[in-house]
């Protein structure tokens, strides 16, 4: 069957099982947009290419399937660099297709030419510049394979116009679909080394103060059920990182919540005092370790990751295990059982009592004053949490609101928390929520966003309204770039430089209405629940609620940047002082 390159590209996506793609056309990609009209693939027309990239990420994180975005050359390609980098940092499988000027024009500074593969090389797992129409199915097959196997990540395919344009003879190709991929330099290891697994099981049984340090890899590998089994078998408590929230249910008594710079006291301190960190799909990020040389000084480390380069990158493991974290946990469970299971565990009564005592003495604290003088952001999140179904998907921007959402939400299901952890991309929230809702139309999707973040990508609510994607957005409007304000307050002697945004400009409710959404504004604690309930009842268009929250509120606990986790600061206003 003879096809042109544009048809072959769309057909290849169909062969990969793509149901939806996010994008915006332009000159160089025009011939690929034409066959979309006849394809069962749903295309969602975004208002800015950054939105397409984050939607693909939100879709991928909510569903576990690769997200697809397609844009034109030049400025469109550069617009999607931020989502590529975001996906690279958070290991999110997305496939981005960019148009390119014709092969003969490459290198001539042609109109809307840019060196897309050159620019995106450092922020993709791999990228391809396709120069022959005949190569298209093979490259698409390779791209999906690379994006979704091993450590997942973003890939990019750059497609010059002459190989897709039916008017150009170079676009002619004979259709085929490759049975398999041939990448001699790419063979991810998925099975852990049996001797290392036995050694890990031995350390687990002997440890007196073990902690399971569970990261985003748990979600990528769909390892939640195995992790619960391992934790319950051994009785070991679990901390879940910002990327790992929901990978182990918060409702499980063994869950200690989030560690790190804004982690809770018990999660942070239990790692510090532990004698064994069972590290599962986590990467010793600086936001978790604080000062590395002072991090968990007495702990031996078991480190399981599918990416061998993570083992020993920051902290030298005593037992390194390369493999798919779900398969490795399953083997670990067997190995622990062989050693005697629960009965073979060291006596940890003292440690468990210590953890319980820390939890009792240092819970997360917040207080909504009765006099109604201010609205506390934590109160808004708690009310929202209690008024929405358990499997609601929560998506956030980056800043204080993100930390409060991670701290105060109760994540009992995997893939219910979607945020930008590694890159910390303001503006991630709204488009990622759109992508998540497209992937999971059966779920309620709430974006918890900052006023600053919202202004970066709010236009994608137009996309959501016109495509009838009914996401809900809670803006925690503190009139500030709050997280930056917090640092200026604490570390720059309250010298506030360029962080004030104004609560009323823009008028968020009116802006929402102008974008085809329902818009509300909430000033008082009494209005919080009724407005959320109103929002929950609307299912035919997006909803935005502008919550006017206390601008003075800060995120606690906090480990100052570069400091040791031993120097964790608790909320001073709660009269507990430092530690």
């Amino acid at each position, binding site marked *: 069957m003879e096809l042109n390159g544009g048809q072959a590209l769309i057909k290849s996506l169909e062969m990969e099982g793509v149901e939806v793609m996010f994008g915006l056309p332009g000159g160089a990609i025009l011939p690929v947009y034409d066959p979309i009209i006849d394809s069962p693939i749903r295309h969602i027309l975004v208002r800015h290419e950054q939105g397409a990239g984050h939607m693909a990420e939100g879709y991928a994180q909510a569903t576990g399937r690769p997200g697809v975005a397609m844009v034109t050359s030049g400025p469109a390609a550069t617009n999607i660099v931020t989502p590529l980098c975001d996906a690279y940092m958070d290991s999110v499988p997305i496939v981005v297709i960019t148009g390119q000027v014709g092969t003969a024009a490459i290198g001539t500074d042609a109109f809307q030419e840019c060196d897309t593969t050159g620019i995106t*090389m450092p922020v993709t*797992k791999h990228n391809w510049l396709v120069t022959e129409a005949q190569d298209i199915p093979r490259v698409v097959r390779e791209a999906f394979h*690379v994006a979704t196997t091993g450590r997942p990540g973003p890939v990019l395919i750059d497609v010059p116009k002459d190989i897709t344009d039916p008017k150009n003879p170079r676009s002619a190709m004979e259709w085929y679909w490759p049975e398999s991929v041939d*990448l001699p*330099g790419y063979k991810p290891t998925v099975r852990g080394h049996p001797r290392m697994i036995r050694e890990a099981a031995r350390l687990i049984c002997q440890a007196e103060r073990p902690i399971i340090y569970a990261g985003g890899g748990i979600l990528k590998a769909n390892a939640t059920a195995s992790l619960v089994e391992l934790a319950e078998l051994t009785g070991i408590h679990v901390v879940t990182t910002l990327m790992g929230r929901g990978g182990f249910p918060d409702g499980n008594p063994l869950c200690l919540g989030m560690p790190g710079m804004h982690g809770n006291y018990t999660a942070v301190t239990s790692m510090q005092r532990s004698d064994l960190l069972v590290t599962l799909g986590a990467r010793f990020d600086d936001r978790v370790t604080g000062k590395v040389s002072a991090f968990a000084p007495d702990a031996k480390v078991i480190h399981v990751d599918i990416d061998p*380069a993570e*083992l020993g*990158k920051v902290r030298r493991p005593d037992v390194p295990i390369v493999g798919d974290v779900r398969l490795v946990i399953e083997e670990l469970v067997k190995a622990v059982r062989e050693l005697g299971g629960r009965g073979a565990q060291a006596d940890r009564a003292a440690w468990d009592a210590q953890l319980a005592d820390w939890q009792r003495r240092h819970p997360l604290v917040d207080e909504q004053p009765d006099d109604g003088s201010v609205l506390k952001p934590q109160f808004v999140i708690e009310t929202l949490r209690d008024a929405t179904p358990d499997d609601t998907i929560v998506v956030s921007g980056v800043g204080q609101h993100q930390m409060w959402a991670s701290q105060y939400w109760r994540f009992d299901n995997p893939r219910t928390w979607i945020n930008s952890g590694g890159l910390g991309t303001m503006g991630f929230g709204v488009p990622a929520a759109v992508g998540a809702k497209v992937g999971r139309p059966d779920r309620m999707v709430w974006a918890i966003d900052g006023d600053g973040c919202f202004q970066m990508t709010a236009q994608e609510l137009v996309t959501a309204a016109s495509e009838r994607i009914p996401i809900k957005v809670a803006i925690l409007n503190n009139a500030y770039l709050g997280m930056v304000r917090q640092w200026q307050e604490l570390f720059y002697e309250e010298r506030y430089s360029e962080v004030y945004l104004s609560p009323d400009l823009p008028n968020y409710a009116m802006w929402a209405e102008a974008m085809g959404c329902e818009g509300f504004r909430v000033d008082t604690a009494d209005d919080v629940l009724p407005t959320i309930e109103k929002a929950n009842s609307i299912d035919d268009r997006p909803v935005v609620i502008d919550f006017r929250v206390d601008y003075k509120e800060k995120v606690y606990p906090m480990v100052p940047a570069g400091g040791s986790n031993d120097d964790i600061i608790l909320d001073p206003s709660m009269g507990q002082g430092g530690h």
Partner: protein
Amino acid sequence: MADAKPVHHTLSVLVENKAGVLTRVAGLFARRGFNIYSLAVAPTDDERFSRITIVVDVESAPLEQVQKQLFKLINVVKITELAPDEAVERELMLVTVSAEPGTRGQVIELVQVFEGSIVDVGHDAVTVMLAGASDKLDDFEELMRAYGIVELQRTGRVALPKLERQAPRLRSVSGKVG
């Protein structure tokens, strides 16, 4: 230790012969903050692959991390670390040296001592080719400075594993390769 020589390691990296592969390798070193001391690229006997020989300054990063990150590149097929005493390493130098009639004899004599050859002759300069281990080239370069180096070009190291270690049976013939 202050004036100790930097620690160098040689990595022999087999890569797929695809457009942009050198950029991927060089870019990885740049963005991970690893230092390249020298680099040489050449085709292999199999046209699908090329070999990049990289000498890494391992004070900039642990060698293990460099290798692991390199191996993550999809086009990198195989990495062999060539420790200095387990590899044959050679480098080629072309150097144009001032050689006035009065000093020309001395230059020629040194070239002979170093087993180099003169590949071009001008009125007051000669161009010398010298192949050998890198420190031999360093020594020669140092000696030539006294006469005046006009231009100098070195290729960077290429290396292969020593045969003795890999295949003991070949020991009997290895005398030839020395």
